């Protein structure tokens, strides 16, 4: 390959490598943030709460008529007592609940509805340091797994693309140094 072409290919590979690496890291970080929010609640207290209302809301992305682009969200209000004062709990899951597909939301709304109709309390997760920070179902939005599953290989691809011009440059430099040494300084 002519020297100019080889240099251009190296630059393209390095730029593409940086782009892939940054995008992969961004995906990994987003997935890790969701997972961290979910994991953060592992030591929280569990308290009995009364379900006051529970509804399933459907959202469409703007300008889209397609049912496949709809997302669902369980909007609920529960009430529990902490240190003798009543507190509301309106969060369904630790990582936000607006997502697709519909099935997990149907399951959650069925549980909340059953407790509301029977008048039986439901256990809710409460942050012991700040009892107003609470949610009902300790389930992670599975999108973190997709983010990390795509982010890791993309980051590795970026590293590989960056490594190719780096190895080529190192080889060229090494060859030049050997030639120079053979000729004598």
């Amino acid at each position, binding site marked *: 390959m002519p020297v100019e072409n080889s240099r251009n290919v190296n630059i393209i590979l390095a730029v593409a490598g940086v782009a892939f690496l940054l995008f992969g*890291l*961004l995906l*990994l*970080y987003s997935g*890790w943030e969701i997972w961290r929010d979910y*994991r953060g*609640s*592992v*030591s*929280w*207290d*569990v*308290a*009995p709460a009364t379900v006051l209302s529970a509804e399933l809301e459907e959202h469409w992305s703007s300008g889209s008529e397609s049912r496949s682009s709809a997302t669902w969200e369980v909007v609920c209000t529960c009430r529990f*007592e902490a240190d003798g004062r009543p507190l509301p709990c309106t969060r369904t899951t630790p990582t936000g609940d607006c997502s697709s597909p519909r099935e997990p939301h149907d399951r959650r709304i069925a549980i909340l509805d059953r407790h509301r109709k029977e008048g*039986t*309390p*439901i*256990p809710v997760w409460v942050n*012991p340091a700040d009892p107003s920070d609470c949610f009902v179902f*300790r389930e992670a939005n599975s999108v973190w797994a997709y983010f990390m599953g795509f982010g890791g290989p993309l*980051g590795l691809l970026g590293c590989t693309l960056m490594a190719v011009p780096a*190895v080529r440059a*190192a080889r060229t430099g090494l060859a030049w140094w050997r030639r120079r040494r053979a000729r004598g300084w």
Partner: protein
Amino acid sequence: MGFWTFTLLAVGGTAAAVLLGGVALWAGVRFLARVDGVSLGRGLSVYIFAAIVAFLGYAAVRYILFAMVLGPYGAVPGRIVGAAVAVVGMAWAVKKAGCGTWAKAALALLPAAGHAGLVVWAASSVAGDIREADRAAECRHALAELGIALARYAEEHGGRLPEDSVALRATMGSDWVAPRCPSAAGRADGGHFYFSGAGPKPLNAAEPGFARRLVACDLRPHGPGRNVLRGDGWACWLSEDQFQTELAAPHNADFARAFRAETR
């Protein structure tokens, strides 16, 4: 942790692990297998290749072959055969990279396999801690469900608590299943200790101060502490020191006596 700290840790950690593995493989090839002309860069690239082969081999055996054919019974044999396949895969990768014979490849692999073993051990111990914390959280949720059932029983029986789960089932319905600790699979006690009151002094939810009293707790600790259920229905995790302090409180004297008799 911000994006850049995360990036630094992720990239730095991965690079350090790969670099150490590459150096270990290069040292194994150069000094144990006595193969000349192998550069450090080649050691690094072969280590990455060998690690990918080992990971894919392990995943295929453990999660596809054994999990699909044997289901939950395939977990332990899947791990063993998967590890064996991973080691053979690494040796094959090293042999392909120019080590000549299988014996030389196995010899060259020793330091790198030790390094890979350390990485896997560290990752699996972190995963084990995460699983144990999840089980403790599930157990706390189960205790809270028990608290809700107890509160319902007390409401229908003038504040009195049930003697045992049989009495509780009579109120909750025959399809009610007593909540269990996930770490107590196969044990009849369900992993929880429940205290209904002592002889002439049965527990009563209507008593003043009942909300602070311990009603139930884990029979065995979850890590360095255990979950407890209080009279107000709150389930929380206490370190073992905090738990002993709770047991020493005068309002929990009967609970402490019964708990010590049960776990003696």
